[in-house]
């Protein structure tokens, strides 16, 4: 049992490099560790390049990096990863184990929570520490952000996933020092039942949706895939990318990697232009962090006008060509 309270975060890899959420997880871990008088550690499970990545994690703010390195982790296979993470958590006994609320994170967290019989709060957007009890308070949206629930855990490790972009990232600092602690784990081959056959990329050309400064999104009101050409044109002029609502993806007007929303990508551009999008809570959860939201919709009663900063009540087929003409 550790005496100091250790905040451990999971360093997810994305194409061999640290995932962008590492800086957010590190910033959050630091602030909670300071409030609890604890320390910040990172857990890296990697197939190669472990030392370089560990040093990068130290620059990101980890005081300790637990490094599980084995060529069997070249692919992010959940069944081997969860075994590795479980064993590290049993050794380290962190107060809080944080993961990013990514497709990988939301897959690992509940598996781990059952194995450790540990409390789990997913998709959290804010954390605090209760001054009197020193309990960690995790806030998460419910009912598509209509409500907010503040949750506490009765046992350690408290496992939690942090919504992407919910908090400001830490600054990297190459002068930081820390310890790299290699950990050997045993993988039970009987638990490896799923076989990865291949990975496919479906990404559009241009900037990534989550990094874009300008996002032009289309929804049900677009009516058909061809109408996204207007959005593409506007996005190109403004140096942005095209996204869409779940309806647009369900109708195959866009690939699923372009979905903005609770179960898609969380975006926080400088400018978000929502075209023919009603403003369903599931969609707004993904774009409400945008600095400026413009809504273009025929229906003046559309809920999007309650969440947008600028609104045009009109048909996009008339509105967009005018905007494009002026911005060219």
């Amino acid at each position, binding site marked *: 049992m550790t005496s100091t309270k250790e905040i451990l975060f999971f360093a997810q890899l994305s194409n061999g490099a640290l995932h962008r959420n590492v800086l957010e997880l590190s910033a959050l871990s630091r602030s909670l560790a300071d409030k609890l008088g604890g320390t910040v550690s990172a857990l890296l499970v990697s197939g190669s390049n472990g030392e370089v990545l560990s040093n990068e994690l130290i620059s990101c703010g980890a005081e300790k990096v637990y490094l599980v390195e084995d060529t069997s982790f070249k692919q992010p296979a959940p069944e081997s990863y969860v075994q590795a993470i479980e064993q590290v958590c049993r050794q380290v006994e962190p107060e809080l184990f944080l993961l990013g609320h990514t*497709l*990988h994170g*939301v*897959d690992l*967290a*509940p*598996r781990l*929570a*059952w194995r450790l*019989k540990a409390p*789990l*709060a*997913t*998709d959290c957007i804010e954390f605090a520490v209760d001054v009197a009890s020193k309990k960690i308070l995790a806030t998460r949206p*419910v*009912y598509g952000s*209509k*409500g*907010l*629930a*503040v*949750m*506490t*855990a009765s*046992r350690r490790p408290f496992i939690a996933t942090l919504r992407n972009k919910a908090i400001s990232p830490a600054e990297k600092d190459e002068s930081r020092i820390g310890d790299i602690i290699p950990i050997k784990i045993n993988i039970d081959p009987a638990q490896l*039942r*799923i*076989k990865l*056959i291949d*990975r*496919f*990329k*479906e*990404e559009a050309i241009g900037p990534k949706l989550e990094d874009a400064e300008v996002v032009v999104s289309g929804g049900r009101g677009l009516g058909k895939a061809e109408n996204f050409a207007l959005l593409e044109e506007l996005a190109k002029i*403004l140096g942005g990318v095209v996204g869409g609502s779940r309806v647009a993806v*369900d109708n195959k007007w866009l690939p699923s*990697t372009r979905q903005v929303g*609770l*179960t898609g990508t969380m975006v926080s551009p*400088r*400018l978000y232009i929502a075209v023919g999008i009603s403003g*369903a*809570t599931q969609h707004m959860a993904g774009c409400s962090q945008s600095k*400026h939201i*413009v809504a273009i919709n025929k229906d003046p009663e559309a*809920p999007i*006008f*309650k*969440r*947008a*900063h*600028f*609104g*045009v009540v*009109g048909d996009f087929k*008339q*509105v967009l060509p*005018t905007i494009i003409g*002026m*911005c060219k």
Partner: protein
Amino acid sequence: MNIIVCVKLIPDPEAPVQHYRIDSSGNRMETVQGVKPVVSPFDENAVEAALQIKESHGGKVTVLTLGPPASQEALKRALRMGADDAVHIERAGIPEPSPHITAYLLAKAIEKIGSYDLVLCGRQAGDWDQGQVGCLMAECLGIACVSIVKNIEVVGNGSLRVQRLTEDGYELMEVPTPSLLTVSNEINLPRLTNVAAMLKAAKVKIPVWSKEDIAVDTNLYESLESLMHIERLYIPEVSTECHIMMGETAEDQAVNLVKTLRNQKII
């Protein structure tokens, strides 16, 4: 292929926030009258996926829910879509956000139902959106699990080929049975009910099981029940002032929009 699908009845997630309030316990969101309950959308995708597999490979689809008596409506909807059987685990005072308990009770019911090849559920419920129950259940059952699946194909020797969403595309995986998959909306568009299924559904008797019927381990149940606590549940004030563009025509409004965005140095 025998498939068990877990479904949940929730208040329509698209109902406006004004139709929601916090109940007197302070731990639950309740809706005012008029908000219709629906089957959680991803669960409908799971039912549809099960029906498609049954139609091309044979077998049986059983739907399972946990909740108060009214939640049987979710089972009836699935039966009207074409499911063959339904089981209702009646909820006795389970606090709302307790995924461990939900997963444990569903897993015990699945064990009691017995022979199955595949368990399907939605990637997350449209009310609390926690996305935990599927993977928790698979761990509890000790079966293989792939979450957030957008395509399922039955191949020979009782295996499945599934496509799992990733941040930049998807992974193709081969999964043995029995296994559990959680599905995402990309997988299909759920069907409406049809007359033949409705006639058949009306005749299905839905057994109601209690905790005692499914051999729950009391010690484990109690320890899972106490893992998480809601300190506070509230509806935040959201007030955004929307500047609606003036103009006789849509074009005029568009011109004003561009001018406004330029004046404020947004573009």
